[in-house]
Structures are given as structure tokens and as C-alpha cells.
């Protein structure tokens, strides 16, 4: 397993805001909630720090899915950061759509208190992508 990527299991990169979603992931961890190892986070100070180029880079490097996650609208620690995130992700989605890879990109709102929601969101996304990835594959 250390030698390469598992061809069947998706690799997901998530950009998580320090003030909310990353905190939620810490909470999920301390409550020992389980989620797939294919989900890996990049911590950013605010979801608005996520340059569309990061998302594209992750896809170019082979990520099966990318998510950007921040505080719920109206709750951004930096006041309006997540509104900009929403706009950027919407624009990216449109671009991804033209390449038929729209499903790779997800946007979640998960507050610092929502450890469970974090796990539900990332596991849901993982399973969805895994299903598509393995559709038609045998073994």
C-alpha cells in the first residue's frame, strides 16, 4: 500500500478553514469518528484563501475529488470570506462542467461544532465518488 495509490479507493483533498471545518475535523478525531483514509485535509486560514488554482492543481495531480469547506454563510470569522468562496467555487464548477468533471468538486459548510456533519459530508462524498470510480470495473 505504501508503494502506490489504491486504484479503487478515491483520493480526496479537502481545503478546510481553520476556524470551522478544520476545528470540526479535530472534534471528529477526538470523538474517534471514522472516515476513509483517502480523505486528506489542507488547512487554510479561511476558505477564501483557496485559490481556484489549488483546486485545479489537486485535480491535475490526480485527486478523484476536491472539496472546499468553510463556516456557514453569515458566520465567517473573516466576515464575508465564505461568500467569495461560494462565488469562486460556483465559477469553478461551471468550468469543471465543460470538462464533465463537475462531480469532483464539492463545497460544504461545516461549523466548528459539527464534527458529525464533517464526517457525514466527507464520507458521503467519498462513497459517491468511489461508486462512480468503480462503476464497470471488475475487481
Amino acid at each position, binding site marked *: 500500500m505504501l508503494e502506490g495509490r489504491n486504484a479503487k479507493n478515491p483520493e480526496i483533498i479537502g481545503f478546510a478553514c481553520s476556524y470551522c471545518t478544520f476545528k470540526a475535523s479535530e472534534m*471528529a*478525531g477526538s470523538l474517534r469518528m471514522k472516515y476513509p483514509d483517502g480523505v486528506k485535509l489542507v488547512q487554510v486560514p479561511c476558505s*477564501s484563501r483557496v485559490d481556484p488554482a489549488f483546486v485545479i492543481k489537486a485535480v491535475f*495531480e490526480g485527486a478523484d475529488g476536491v472539496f472546499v469547506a468553510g463556516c456557514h454563510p*453569515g*458566520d465567517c*470569522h473573516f466576515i464575508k470570506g465564505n461568500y467569495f468562496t461560494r462565488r*469562486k467555487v460556483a465559477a469553478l464548477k461551471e468550468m469543471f462542467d465543460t470538462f464533465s468533471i463537475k462531480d469532483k468538486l464539492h463545497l460544504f459548510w461545516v461549523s*466548528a461544532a459539527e464534527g458529525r456533519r464533517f464526517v457525514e459530508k466527507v464520507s458521503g462524498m467519498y462513497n459517491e465518488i468511489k461508486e462512480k470510480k468503480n462503476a464497470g470495473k471488475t475487481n
Partner: protein
Amino acid sequence: MKTGIFICHCGHNIKHTVDVKKVSEYFKRFPGVVVSDDYPFVCSEPGQDMIQEAIRKHCLDRVIIASCTPSLHEELFKDVLKKADLNPFLLRRVGIREHCSWVGDDPELNTGKAIRLIKAGLYASAHYVPLEEKRVDVVKSGLIVGGGVSGLSAALFLSKMGMHVYLVEKDAELGGHVRLLKDVWPAREDGSAIVSRMVNELQTRENVEIFTSTTITEFEGFFGNYQATLNTSSGEKKVTAGGVVVAIGFTPFDPRLKPELNYGNDNRIMTTLEFESRKDSLALPENPRVAVLHCVGSRDEQAGRPYCSRVCCINALRVGDAVKDRYKDSYVESFYMDVRAHPKGGEEFFEDTQEKGVLFTRSNISEINLGPGGVILRGEDTLFGEPFEREFDLAVFSIGMSPPVDSKRISSLLKITLDKDKFFLEAHIKLRPFDTAVKGIFIAGSCSGPKDVEESINHGRASALKLYGFLNLGYAFVDPFISWVDPKRCSGCRMCEKACVAKAIRFDEEKRIVHVEEAACMGCGLCNSTCPSSAVNLKGHMDSYIDDEIGALMEVM
């Protein structure tokens, strides 16, 4: 570059599902990695010494500590670097506990994930540059929001330490709910007496300004220098404070939210609070039948209050005790889920009430109906699994604590987070129970979750102490994570200026480029991801770090 990697076992916590030896061996073959060791507890004193020694011996210029989540022990490990004369911003923390060993069961997968995460840290940290912690001047004054026992004790503490205090209370009177309690457990003291002792002392102090019937309407600024606009009865007032203690208490649960209990429709149904104030004037028959309901508005998913309110069991027990004291031949039945007689002496008191003859029935009460001869409780005995119906002369509800009505407004005004129940969220429930995620803003009392009087007072004092610690030097150090504009790249399009909420971007009319006003920058990085010329970069979170992190996470090993 000379990097040292230290992989923590965290005792069993990491080691049981991550092959730490394999991980440390793996990184030994990387160029530039001069140390790659695993160790039982890197945060222990010998662990810290080991890191310091390694820094000195190998002249390390990057340190990677793979252990618990990055925000834990942050200061501790930064200090380790400082003690070894290495810039603390050359440290990279990698969370292989909360983000790896604790969320996956498979040792092989976890070991692979740990390697990926550490590799991301290794690649990113290669770009790190030394940074200087920013020294900021702080205003030596504290703003206390809420004048209940928590807020009062915080205000008293701060003023005694010689700090200027603004105390803001939305009601006309100070003292919150405690003012209304006749008999505060366990000292059996009058709540209003406790409150007036605190208020009287506060009023004698010159460095305290008290604003009652006042709310905060605007809040801005940053750590050490917050400006709040207060809406007082005599108009608007602006105050400047170095930090804030939020102590806005709770709202008693309104039993009307459970209409099946018929509260508010009959004076034979009341809360423990009402019972307290009316117990001398109750028109009860000679041998009264009294029902006491625990957990009304607590541990109740349907009512949206899944948590335990901690104080209501003891309040319920005291109703039974009071009735039994007054009416020897009364029939008192307590309907409970579990008895959590929380504060000191509570368990003994529970036994006393049983000895006095209060009956305890483990049950769910589904409804209360009004009859001519009494109120009729219907429910299920959850030990016997049997439904029952019983008539009483009086039903008393021990109501729980709901989050403060103002919690949503205050949270968005001050940018502090709420938990899922709408109480304020601690930065870390065990290690930083007084801090919020915002520097210089603390929480105290039951606005961060139900607490009794003693706990609330202690919480207020402790938060004030933390605030004092932040402000008492008159200056403090903050992370230097602010944006910087490369003048050679900036095209002067001013896109970043439009995006920046903090208004930290200034346009130089002459040079036709922008620069970042350091003191105003909050460090969100929005300008960074907006600039079409890649001219802005956020220190500590540069494009190059994140780019290489992504690359490392996806690298085929």
C-alpha cells in the same frame, strides 16, 4: 536544508494504528532530512529536550513534529524552537492523531496516510521563511458583556488587578438569574444577597463603569484594541477595550414549548422557580399530592435540548424536600430519567430526600391533563415498561437551561462560534475552556453550557484572569500571518482592495500599486486568492506552501 522529523507515539494513541517505526524509517532516506525519529511522548519534558538537542547538534533549520492536531501544544513546541535559538515559524505540526490514528482503524492504511501527511509538511516547510511575531500595543481595559454572577466576578477580578472595566448588562438590574433565587445550593444563601455583595463592591471601585439597560450594537477592531458601540438608555457610547469576556448567561427553558404538559394553563402547574417564590402561599390541601418532573427541556431531542442542564436535578430534589418538610403526610413523587445530583453534597441530599419519603419513579411523562380534582399525569414507567396515570394537586417542573436569547446576535457581532446547541464554543473543551477562537475574547458562565452558581463564578474569574494575562504588559505578540504585496508584480488593478473586508489594502496613487496596512490585516488570504497577478501572498500560508502540500498528498510513493 536540514530537517528534523519527530514522530510521536502519543503512548498508545498513535502507535496502535500507525507503524511509527516504519514512518520514521521511511523519511530517513529523504535528502535534507537529518533526523527522523519516533518517540513515546514528544510533548513530555524529555521529548522537548530531545528536540532541542537535535536542533543544536545537527543545526536543524526545519522541525516537523507529527503528533496531535496542530492547534494543540502549539505554543509549547514553538517555545522548544525558541529555546534552541531557532525561529519558531520554522516549525511544522502534522496531525497524525486526530486526522489519522483516531479516524481510521487499518494500520496499513493509517501508516500510509501518516506518511502522506508528513510528506506534505516536509515539502511545504521547505519554503518556510523565518517570521517575527508582531508586537502590538494593547489597551489595558476589559469589556464584560453580561452582568450576572459570571460577569460580575470577572469585572471584580479585573478591577482588583487595576484594569479599567466596562460592564454591560442588557437588563435594568445587575445579577441575572441568581438575583431571583431564594436559596442557592449548597450554602442555602439568598441569591440576591450574593449578588448585592458583588455589586456593592463593584460600585465602590473607581475603575469600573457599569452600563445597565445597554446592548452592544457594533463591534470592531482586533486583539488588544477592540471598539464597541454601546446603546445605552442615555444614547450611544463608544468604548475601547483590549479584550472581552462574554458572560451572557442562559434562558430558562420555556415549558410552553412542550404543549402536551399544559404549562401556563393552570396554576397547579409551575416551574421550580415559581415554586420557590410561592411556596409559602400555596393553597394546597392537607395531605397534598405533589409531582416533580425532572428534565423538562433537558436531555430531550424533540425539544431541541439534547444536553443535561446539570442544575435541575438538585432543584427538583429540593422541591420534594421542601414539601416533605412542610407536610409530613404528603405524597411526593419525582419522575426522573436519571438522577444527576451534580454539585458537592448532591448525592447525599438525594439520599436524604429518599429517606424523607419522596418516591422516585423512572419514567417518561407523555402528557398532563387538567381534571377537576387535580392534574393528571400520564406516562410510562421505564423500569417496568408499564403505562400509568396518576392524579396530583400540584406538578412542579424542573426546567433546564436554554442558550441565551442573544447568543446568535453576539456570535455574529463578535465573530465567535456557537456549538450545535447554540451555546458558545470553547477553543478547546479541556485545554482552553475559557478561550474562544478569537484572540482576546473569552467566555464565562452558562453561556458556554449549563453551569451552577459556583461554577459560573469560577468561570468568570478564570476568564478574567486569562484576559488579564493577555493585557497586563500593555503589549502582546500576535502571529505575523498577514499579507504582503510584491510591488514588482502588482498591476494596480485594485481587485484585492475591493475584496478586503478589513479595508487593509491601500492604493498608492503615485506608484499605482497597492500595499497592505499590517495593523489592519486579519490574515484571511482572500486578497491572495483574488489577485490575478499573484502579487499578494499571505505570510505563513504562501501559495508555494499550499501548492507543494497538494503535490505531496497526491504523490505516488
